[in-house]
Structures are given as structure tokens and as C-alpha cells.
């Protein structure tokens, strides 16, 4: 293990960087896209609700790996030249956004509908009431689930390994076959993942407890 750490330190750090970068980018964009589709789902318009529903159901029910590989092949062929890291991160964003949409929607639904009515009675438009009154309260409710989504993102970003995304898992595969020391290589990679995810998950549990009280 020590051997792997010292010999492949720069690869591991690079992998850690790409894993974190991909997870953070995907978290930001999937939160934005997810919130957008969550709002679609609570809009009075039936068409928008159906669009929101279809988006969420499609990307929730297809494996992330299939989505990421599809983008890796499809986008460069028809749309734009992108590399594995970008394609993987786009896949990760879209996949995660469907879960975040579901979370945010339940957050919005659990905000008392009286608040919306009250705000509108006071002369606010629907969008003003949504963005100033309802969403801030909904977000407070969904912070712990969003934190857990981030942990999932870090773990799920390992699919970048399939599309040459230079993340931690990709480096792990590469190191394992270069050093021919499979178990120790993956052991080191495991510790690197835990360094990110374990403190986060304890912090999220702590936060949940605090918010529950």
C-alpha cells in the first residue's frame, strides 16, 4: 500500500482532483436543473407538469453508466467535440438532477400552500411568491437530502472511469494494471474515496439531527 501511495502519488492526486471537480460541477448544475423541473411539476400548467414528470421518470430509471456512455459516444458524433470528463460530468448532472427534482418537489409540496395564497393575496405574482417565499423554505427542508446527493455524486463519479475521465477510479484501474498489484491499488483508492465521503456523511448526520430538533 505504501509503495502504491509513494509511486503513484501524482496520479492519485490528479484523480482525486478530477473526482472532486466533476462532483462539484455536477452538484451545482443538477441542483439548478433539478429545481427547474421540480417547479415544472408544481406549476398549474398541465403540459409543464407532464414534461417535468417525463424528464424525471426517464433519467431516474436508466442506469447512470448507460447515460454517461451514451453521451460519450453521441455528443462528439453529432453535437460537439467533448472529452470523457465532460461527457461523464454531463451524464452525472442529468442523472442526479432527476433525483434532486424529486427531492425539491417534495420540499415544495411540504411548504404550507397557505403561504403561497397569502403571498399572492398580498399582491405578489406567482413567480415572486415562488422564488421569495416558497423556494427558500423548501430549500431549508432539502439541505440534508442534497448533502446526501453530493456523497452519492462523489461515489457515482466513478463511472467516469468507463469514459476515460481521469477520475480516481480511472487512475485506480490504470495503477492496478501498471503495478500488477490489484488489491493494494484499489485499497488505496478506497481510502481516498473515504477521505471525502466519510467526514461528509458524518457531518450530514449531525446536521440532520440539529435540524430535526
Amino acid at each position, binding site marked *: 500500500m505504501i509503495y502504491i501511495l509513494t509511486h503513484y502519488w501524482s496520479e492519485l492526486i490528479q484523480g482525486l482532483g478530477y473526482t472532486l471537480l466533476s462532483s462539484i460541477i455536477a452538484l451545482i448544475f443538477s441542483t439548478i436543473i433539478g429545481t427547474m423541473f421540480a417547479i415544472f411539476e408544481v406549476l398549474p400548467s398541465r403540459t409543464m407538469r407532464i414534461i417535468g414528470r417525463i424528464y424525471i421518470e426517464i433519467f431516474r430509471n436508466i442506469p447512470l453508466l448507460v447515460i454517461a456512455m451514451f453521451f*460519450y*459516444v453521441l455528443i462528439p458524433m453529432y453535437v460537439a467535440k467533448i472529452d470523457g470528463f465532460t461527457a461523464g460530468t454531463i451524464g452525472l448532472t442529468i442523472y442526479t438532477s432527476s433525483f434532486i427534482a424529486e427531492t425539491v418537489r417534495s420540499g415544495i409540496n411540504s411548504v404550507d400552500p397557505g403561504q403561497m395564497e397569502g403571498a399572492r393575496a398580498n399582491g405578489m405574482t406567482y413567480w415572486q411568491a415562488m422564488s421569495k417565499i416558497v423556494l427558500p423554505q423548501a430549500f431549508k427542508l432539502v439541505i440534508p437530502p442534497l448533502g446526501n446527493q453530493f456523497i452519492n455524486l462523489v461515489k457515482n463519479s466513478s463511472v467516469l472511469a*468507463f469514459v*476515460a475521465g481521469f477520475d480516481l477510479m480511472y487512475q485506480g484501474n490504470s495503477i*492496478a*494494471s501498471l503495478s500488477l498489484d490489484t488489491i493494494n491499488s484499489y485499497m488505496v483508492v478506497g*481510502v481516498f474515496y473515504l*477521505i471525502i465521503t*466519510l467526514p461528509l456523511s458524518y457531518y450530514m448526520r449531525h446536521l440532520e439531527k440539529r435540524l430535526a430538533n
Partner: protein
Amino acid sequence: MKKFKRYIGLLGLVSMLAIVLSACGSRQSLSKQDVLTNDKASNTITWGVKADTKLFGLMDVSDNTIKGFDVDIAKALTKKILGKNGKAKFVQVTSQTRIPLLKNGNIDAIIATMTITPEREKQVDFSDSYFDAGQSLLVKNSSNIKSVKDLNKTGTKVIGVTGANSVANIKKYAPKAKVLELSDYAQAMTALKSGQGAALTTDNGILYGMAAQNKGYKVVGGTFTKEPYGIALNKGQQPMQKAINKALKEIEADGTYNRILKKWFGNVKGFDYKEAAR
């Protein structure tokens, strides 16, 4: 601060656990049994073969069996080692999974387009070479790349497969190029098609198979390395190694080898099978 200390303590515990487990892992207790004796008793040899590599080992979708040069050689060797009724069992491997599977004893031997290299010889033993390949490049017909030298530019991306010797070689021959490692040849070809890299590099035999399957792609640059393929065995399996080498000589002497070579490489454009005949 107290919490911070707890996290550090926890991470320390995790690392300790990992070190203890890895210490267990490095214990060499594996496959100390004699493979040849076991295989003779069960009348079966389990070979690790590729299933995504045309000409060498490719899954036939219509009957779910793997077919190719490696597979036929393995069958012929099995017959020589175990007798006419000897059974050859095939397990799909990739460049990434073959060595761990061999060391774990899931397979008895690897016959999967595997180059004999000094690094690998530290981990496994090889038979005599059974095929002489050389590394080459596969590019689009319209590409300007003519040889490996053209790849040695910053920003050029070259596609390879994790665990393949060709990936290590390209880092030597074109150090400025960036190597993208995919999990197997099917994924690598898909990546080349979608324009993820300027060229796909691996051994010429494999590339000729790919060029035959995919219109609009050609093999260029000749061979810039020598890649003798060997059958890999675990360390300490000298009886099996001897048996395989003896069987190899036998199939070369009685014409079986040349027949198999002709069957797979007889009609491959750009490959002179007569030169490779033994």
C-alpha cells in the same frame, strides 16, 4: 475541534483496517496446487480468452460462444495435453482483468493477445511465444497520421486499453501524446469512432480485425515494437508450462498451427500469414 479529532481518529482507523487487510492480501497462499494435476483429474483446462477482439477471440452473438485464433489454439493445446476427450473451458477476460483472475485461480492459463514482457514476467510465467505481433496504429482513412512520430505532439490523444502493453509502449514512443485508456477493445473502437482520439493503438493483428469490421479505417505506420504473444501461467506451475510448450511444438510440427493461422489470417488484407507460419 473535538469533532475534528474524531474524524482524524476515524480516518486513522480506516487506514489501519486497510493496512491490516492488505497485509492479509499479500500473503502468498494462492494456487499453490499443481494446475496440471488438477486439470488432468477434471479433464478440463480453463482458459482466459478475449471476447471483444476479432480474429483472436470474439463472441459470436448467434450461439453465445467465443471464436478466434486464440480460442482454436487453446482447443488444440487442450487436446494435446489432456488427450482427445479433453475439454477446454473459456472464461472471458479483458486486458484489465486477466492477471488478477489468473493469480486468483479463476483461470488456469491466459491465452488472450498477451505480450511477453519483463514486467509481467515478475508476476507470471509465460510459455514460448505462439504468435508474433507488433504494435501499430488504426486511424480514419482521411487522417494525416502516417506513423507513431506524428502522434508525438502535445494535445494529441491516443486511445488504448487499460492493462495492455501498448499503452505503456506509446508513452515511450510518443511521450507528448495523452493516452486515453478504455476498458476493452469494443469501447476503444467506439471512442475512436466518436472522435475522442486521433488514433487507436494496439497490436497489428487486433487492428487488422478492427479495420476489417469497420469501413473507413486503416492500419498505418507499420509495426514499431515487437510483441511476442505468450500463454501466461501462475508462478511455480513448471509442469503445466512444460506441457504447454511441448504441445505448442507438436501443433507446430503436425500442421495444426498453420491450419488455424490460415483459417483466421488467410484473408486478412495487409497481413502476410505465410510469413507468420511456423
